[in-house]
């Protein structure tokens, strides 16, 4: 089997905040009735996490689950275990109207870290990144400059951005420009 590589192969940039591509990540799109018992059991079995509330991310011992829309979740696991997780979930949701799809290779993930990481993102997305409005465990689907993206906050204060793999270079470039030394606005 061919060797899987991520979109930018772990590219990094150090400005007034650090921007890095995080490498391969297992991502599974799940659609269905989020309130159903089958869904919470399948999510629990796959990740150990509970079904997240609106615009929240929950995490368990095997991975994290992000709320994407009223009928869609994103399950984030290790790249190596993604096929196994898809199988577990497909099995768990058998008989109910649901979709489980492996989208790992269709996406790119970036991490923005450092004290001014909120400013880096706030320059690019029409989102309120104030500390009391957006923090760890929150997810927001929006846009980064001209392309759709989702951003969530990690416990350590860093942020992760997911976008389509086809626009990975574009997103990395705009994040680089936004984090360029001398461009710190010191707002957040």
């Amino acid at each position, binding site marked *: 089997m061919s060797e899987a590589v991520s979109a930018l192969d772990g590219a990094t940039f150090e400005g007034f905040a650090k921007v890095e591509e995080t490498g391969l990540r297992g991502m599974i799109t799940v659609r269905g009735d989020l309130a159903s018992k089958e869904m919470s059991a399948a999510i629990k079995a796959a990740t150990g996490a509970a079904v997240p509330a609106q*615009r929240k991310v929950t995490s368990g011992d095997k991975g994290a689950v992000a709320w994407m829309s009223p009928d869609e979740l994103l399950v984030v696991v290790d790249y190596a275990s993604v096929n196994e997780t898809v199988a577990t979930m497909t099995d768990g949701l058998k008989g109910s109207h649901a979709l489980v799809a492996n989208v790992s290779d269709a996406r790119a993930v970036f991490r923005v870290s450092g004290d001014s990481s909120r400013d880096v993102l706030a320059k690019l997305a029409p989102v309120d990144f104030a500390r009391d409005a957006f923090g760890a465990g929150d997810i927001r689907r929006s846009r980064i400059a001209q392309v759709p993206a989702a951003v969530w906050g990690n416990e350590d204060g860093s942020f992760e951005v997911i976008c389509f793999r086809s626009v990975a270079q574009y997103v990395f470039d705009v994040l680089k420009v936004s984090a360029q030394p001398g461009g710190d606005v010191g707002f957040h």
Partner: protein
Amino acid sequence: MLTLQCPYCGVWAEETELHAEGEAHLKRFGPGSDDADFESYLFMRENPKGVHFERWRHSNGCGKFFHAARCTMTLEVFGTYPAQTLEPPQDIKDKISAKQPGWSWRDFS
């Protein structure tokens, strides 16, 4: 800038995150309907000065369609509501009536 709350994800989204999708509450006339109905479904749109109902899509977000009630003259937004409905919910109608008594739009008032 216009800011609408998406009724599905609760986000206060500004215009660049949304896409305008035309008039709300259109009744579709498809194959087999008479020509006048089909023409009015395809081409005849309201262009009011005042209360208006529009369809929007949270395109850079959850991707869902929703409806918004707003005034084209004052740019006031009366509210947004899910698209799975044939007419505006009563609480939105009440809000409009409080601000603009005697309003009407197509068959609604």
